[in-house]
């Protein structure tokens, strides 16, 4: 089914189906709810304004995920630069700030995992987020990130290993 990004009906359908995915992508890359909201809104505005025609809703989804991922990574980079600048001024590391929604969750493991993912390098983080939170397979991730499938496979695994290491340090892992 052809999807017109500027058509009311198809836009509505895409929003309904794809919003949860791109919201998760934005959130798990930025871990900031306000930023994620802005990014998702921006992604959909771009999607609408471009007036693109996709052969299927999946293709529209890949486009949106790609845009969202890039916007989110840009946000993180910008935030990182700002943080470095602020830290230089304060000459002391900032404590890991807990945002409202994180405290609401109340699940310690969940919170630890989210914090650990923030420590992953950008390349690994993007792949892991797409794999674990976007319900995409290696092929789809390769398509979105424009890398090979085997590269996706390796990055996912490396991300998991790093995460495992980080969680062990935190004493979170082996919750059973």
């Amino acid at each position: 089914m052809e999807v017109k990004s500027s058509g009311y009906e198809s836009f509505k359908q895409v929003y309904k189906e794809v919003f949860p995915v791109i919201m998760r992508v934005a959130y798990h890359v930025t871990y900031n709810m306000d930023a994620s909201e802005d990014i998702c809104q921006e992604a959909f505005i771009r999607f609408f304004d471009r007036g693109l025609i996709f052969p299927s809703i999946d293709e529209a989804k890949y486009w949106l995920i790609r845009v969202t991922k890039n916007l989110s990574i840009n946000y993180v980079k910008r935030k990182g630069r700002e943080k470095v600048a602020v830290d230089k001024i304060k000459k002391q590391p900032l404590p890991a700030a807990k945002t409202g929604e994180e405290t609401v969750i109340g699940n310690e493991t969940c919170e630890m995992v989210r914090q650990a993912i923030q420590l992953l390098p950008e390349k690994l983080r993007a792949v892991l987020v797409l794999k674990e939170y976007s319900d995409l397979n290696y092929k789809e991730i390769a398509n979105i990130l424009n890398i090979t499938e085997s590269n996706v496979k390796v990055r996912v695994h490396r991300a998991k290993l790093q995460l495992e290491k980080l969680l062990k340090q935190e004493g979170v892992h082996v919750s059973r």
Partner: protein
Amino acid sequence: MCLDDQVLSTYIDGELAEPWKTQVEEHLLHCTICKSRFNQLKDLGNDIKSARLREEEFTVQRDRIWQYLEKNCVAVVKERFIEKRLSFKAPVFVAAAAAFAILFSAGIYFAANSNKDIIPEIPVVSGQVDTETSNSIVAVRATDSAPAAMSLQDLTIEEILQLLDDRGFEVDLSLKSVEPLTVSLPVIDTPIDVMEEVVEEEEVYYDQEGTQLTVEEIELSETLYDVEGNEVLLEIIEIAPEEAVPETLLEESPSADPVSADPVSENPPVENPVSENPPEGNPAAP
């Protein structure tokens, strides 16, 4: 030979193809070390998945963004659609608007005079209005059933307006446009008389040698010459106060008017109102 992490990870992700998938499954059945590692990775995977942002965590954002998009994107598209439907080429629209205005005025007229004698000047107005860009036919039908048909081209707008004016209607025709129209409007260009701009010729004066003088030089020089070398005497006119004007005009002849006497003239102002021999070239002479 035991399985490495990469293979296990791929297997857990459900991305391991056959025949390796079956081989891994068989291996895990009897290798406790690999099974243990497999369980660790599986737990890790579950931990990661447990951190997934849940649907209920972003329902507010989802609804808020949709509201924004519906208001700012979808609404704009609907607007654009209407604009497209209503946009015509300007000359066509202007012609149609003019025809409508005329018909409307005529309609009011006929409606107002329905019980009186109907003057069948323009019972039905149908005409072809040629515009620069298209040949659009503007056909307008009056509600009266008068048989005569008259083309718009038979009457100028002035005639129509005059007719309505004669009948006591005050007709105000105005063309409104969002942007100033740059196209010429063939419908109304003929009846409008354009006032000719009166360009005053600047007077040019020369000195005795025939050199053209500037404005400053003209003011300073006593004697001026025209292009042919003839002496020109400038008349300096002072406007008298309002009360004084009728008096000077009535009581004194123009030649005796001291204010109009030429200051550059060698002759003194003539005081005698009856000047028998006014000096030649004296501008005070009538």
